[in-house]
């Protein structure tokens, strides 16, 4: 599955998106575990959220095929 990366995440991972293998209808909690295993550099962040289809997700949110998934480092607009 393709995951969008922004800001500090993009810089840490060196790309605007990364690929993680994930079953269909898997939960966000599982994705986070996969991400932290595959990209331990993510632990440099003070925190991050996952967004699914442009909405903040929680650990129980289910990710379906075709969903747009993004890693959201701490925001700092304004």
């Amino acid at each position, binding site marked *: 599955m393709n995951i*969008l990366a*922004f*800001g*500090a995440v993009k*810089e840490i991972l060196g790309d605007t998106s990364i690929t993680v293998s994930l079953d269909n209808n898997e939960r966000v909690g599982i994705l986070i575990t996969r991400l932290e295993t595959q990209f331990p550099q993510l632990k*440099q*962040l*003070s925190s991050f959220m996952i*967004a699914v289809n*442009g*909405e*903040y997700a929680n650990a129980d949110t289910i990710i379906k095929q075709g969903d747009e998934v*993004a890693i*959201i*480092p*701490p*925001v*700092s*607009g*304004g």
Partner: protein
Amino acid sequence: MNIDLKISAEALAVQPCIDWAMSAESGGVDVFIGTVRNSTKGRKVVRLEFETYESMALNEMRKIADDILMKWPVNKILIHHRIGVLVPGDIPVIIVVAAAHRAAAFEACRYAIDTFKQTVPIWKKEVFEDGEHWVAAHP
């Protein structure tokens, strides 16, 4: 329309935002203008680089505006944010809230910028003379 949301790579202009929001129905207009400061914690700022996850950012901005319309009796809400490279003195954000009475305008405008900074996926990198970092990203 009573909501005007924009993310733009162009310079933001204040007066058109105020003109859009003002009317003879709104006795009080509160405007917040964010400005790029020339220093942060004593370090001289050369520039800021803003980026966004635009579709989600507009979605979160819409939620802020909808929340305000539910919580306060306001007539107009405008939120404009600039992205790209900004230098000290440039304007990254303009928020305008127009209401019949000033209390609602002030409270809603403050709520808008406070919530914006917590929820809207926009990120800024501060570039100093001797280094750079993504604001709030690292412990």
